[in-house]
C-alpha cells in the first residue's frame, strides 16, 4: 500500500505571543508505525502532533503528509489522511445524536446514505455504542463520550490516526476498548500516533517512542531502550511501569533491554 508517510524537516513553531513551543524537530513516521509521543505538559508534544494533520502550520521548517506540504494544503484535505481524536471529547462532539455524530465525517468524505448507514452500524458495533445511537452524546458519561469521539474519526478510515491522551479518565473497560482498537488499526496497516502520560500503554502497545522535553525531541527509539535510559527518564520525570521498575531492580535479562509487560517479565522467572 502506498499510504501516508509523515516527514518533519527542521520543524519549529513559535506562537504569536512569542513563545517557542517546538524547535528543530526532524522525524519521519512511516505508514503502519505505532508511535507514542511523551513528555510533561508544556514540553511541546501536543504542539508537535497538531502539525501532523495541519491543525498548526510550522513557523520554521516543513512537514509533508504523504506528498502534501501542510503549508500549502487546507486542514480539510489533510484530515482525510490524518484523523485527530481530541483529548477532551467536548472539543469535538457537536451533533444531537451519537448516530449523527458518527455519520457527519462520512457525509463529508462523500459516502452515500446506504454506505453511511452500513459504516455507522459497523463502527457502533466495534465500539460497543449500538445501544446509544439515538441518544444525545452529552447524555453519555465522559468515558463513553470519548469513545464516540474516537469512533467518529476511525469511521472515516484515515491512513493515520492521532489519539491525544486516549486513556485519561477511562476506567478498566474503556482502556481495554482503546487497546483493542489500537491493535486493530495496527493490523489494518494504519499509522497510530498516541500522545500519552500512560506509561504502561506506551510500553505495551507502541513500538516507538518520541520524547519531547523543553521544546526539543530528545529521544527517538523503542520503549525497551527508553525505560533503561536513566538520563532521559530523569530529565523528563517519566516513571517506568511497575513491572519495568521491578525487573530492573532484580536485574531481569541483565538490564540490556527494559522489561515492558507482565508477560515479558514471566520469561525471566
Amino acid at each position, binding site marked *: 500500500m502506498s499510504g501516508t508517510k509523515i516527514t518533519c524537516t527542521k520543524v519549529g513553531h513559535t506562537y504569536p505571543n512569542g513563545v517557542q513551543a517546538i524547535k528543530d524537530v526532524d522525524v519521519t513516521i512511516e505508514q503502519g508505525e505505532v508511535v507514542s509521543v511523551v513528555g*510533561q*505538559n*508544556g514540553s511541546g508534544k501536543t504542539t508537535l502532533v497538531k502539525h501532523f494533520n495541519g491543525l498548526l502550520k510550522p513557523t520554521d521548517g516543513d512537514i509533508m503528509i504523504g506528498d502534501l506540504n501542510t503549508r500549502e494544503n487546507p486542514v480539510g484535505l489533510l484530515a482525510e489522511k490524518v484523523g485527530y481524536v481530541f483529548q477532551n471529547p467536548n472539543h469535538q462532539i457537536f451533533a444531537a445524536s451519537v448516530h449523527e455524530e458518527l455519520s457527519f465525517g462520512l457525509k463529508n468524505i462523500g459516502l452515500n446514505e446506504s454506505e453511511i448507514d452500513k459504516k455507522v452500524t459497523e463502527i457502533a458495533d466495534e465500539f460497543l455504542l449500538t445501544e446509544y445511537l439515538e441518544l444525545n452524546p452529552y447524555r453519555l*458519561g*465522559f*468515558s*463513553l463520550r470519548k469513545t464516540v469521539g474516537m469512533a467518529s474519526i476511525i469511521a472515516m478510515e484515515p491512513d493515520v490516526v492521532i489519539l491525544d491522551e486516549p486513556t*485519561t*479518565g*477511562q*476506567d*478498566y*473497560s*474503556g*482502556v*481495554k476498548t482503546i487497546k483493542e482498537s489500537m491493535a486493530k488499526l495496527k493490523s489494518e496497516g494504519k499509522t497510530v500516533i498516541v500522545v500519552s*502520560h500512560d506509561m*504502561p500503554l506506551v510500553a505495551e502497545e507502541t513500538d516507538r517512542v518520541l520524547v519531547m522535553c523543553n521544546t526539543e525531541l530528545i529521544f527517538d527509539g523503542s520503549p525497551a531502550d527508553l525505560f533503561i535510559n536513566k538520563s532521559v527518564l530523569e530529565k523528563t*520525570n*517519566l*516513571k517506568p*511501569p*511497575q*513491572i519495568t*521498575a*521491578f525487573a530492573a*531492580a*532484580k536485574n531481569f535479562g541483565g538490564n540490556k533491554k527494559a522489561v515492558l509487560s*507482565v508477560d515479558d*517479565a*514471566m520469561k525471566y*522467572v
Partner: protein
Amino acid sequence: MSIIKIENLSVQYLEQEDKALDGISLEVNEGEFVAILGAHGAGKTTLCLSINGIVPNMINADMFGKIEVAGEVPPKIPVRELASKVGSVFDNPEFQMSQLTVFEEVALGLQNLGVEKDTIIENITRSLELVGLAGFEERSPFEISGGQQQRLAMASALSMKPQILVLDEPTSNLDPIGKEEVFTVTRKMNQEEGLTVIIAEHEVEVIAEYADKVILLEEGKITQMGTPEELFPSIVNIQSDVGVRIPQITDFASKIPDKFKGTIPVTVDQATESYI
C-alpha cells in the same frame, strides 16, 4: 474514633432509573486514608458528594438511610457550613477558580464565612505553605499549571481547617508531575495534619502505596472492602467484571505466588523485598 458513619445509604437521582448508591454501609476512622475504586457509573462521585453534602443539597436526589459526617448530618446543614469540616477537591480544577489572584481565591471561602481579617490572612498564608504555593499569592489562578491549580483548590479547602478532605478523581486531568504534586500534598495532609482522606481515584499504584482502606463499588453497592494487600489480590481474576485495574506487580505476583513467599505484593518495594 469514627468520623464518618454511613448506614444503609441509598441515593436516587430523579431522572435515573437505577439507584446511584444502593444500601451502602461504611465506617471511617479519624485519620484514615480511604480510597474508593470502581468503574464509571459505579457510584464513586455520588459517594463523595454525599459526604460533602452537595448531594442532595445542591444536586437534587432522594436520599435514604443514615449518614453522619464529623458529627453533622450533611443533608441537614448548608454545604458552605459543612465545608468548615469537610474540604472538597474535584477533577477539574479550572472550574473551581473564580478570582483574579491565588490569594483572593483562598480568601473567598473564609470571607463567606465571615471570619476576621487577621485570621483570614493567617489562614491563607498557612494553607498556601501547606500545599507548597507560598510566593504564588499575586499570581493568576488561570496562569499556573494544572498541578498548581489543584493544590490551590486544596489550599482553599484547607483554609477552613476541615477534619476531612474529599477528593474526586483529583489527578484525572494532570500530567505525571502534577499527579505527584497532588498525591504528595494529600499524603502530607493525612500523615502530618491528621486529616481523614476520602479519595476516588483510578491510579491504583498510588492507592496501593497510600491507602489504609480500599472500597470497591459496583453498581452502587460496596462489594469489597479491605487493605490494598487484601483487596487487590482478591480481584486479580475479575478485573474486567468489576471495572478496576490492579497494580501490575500484583498481577505478576499472583501468577507465581511461590516466588513471593506466599504473600502477594501491591507495591514495587514489597515485591523487590519478598521475591526469591
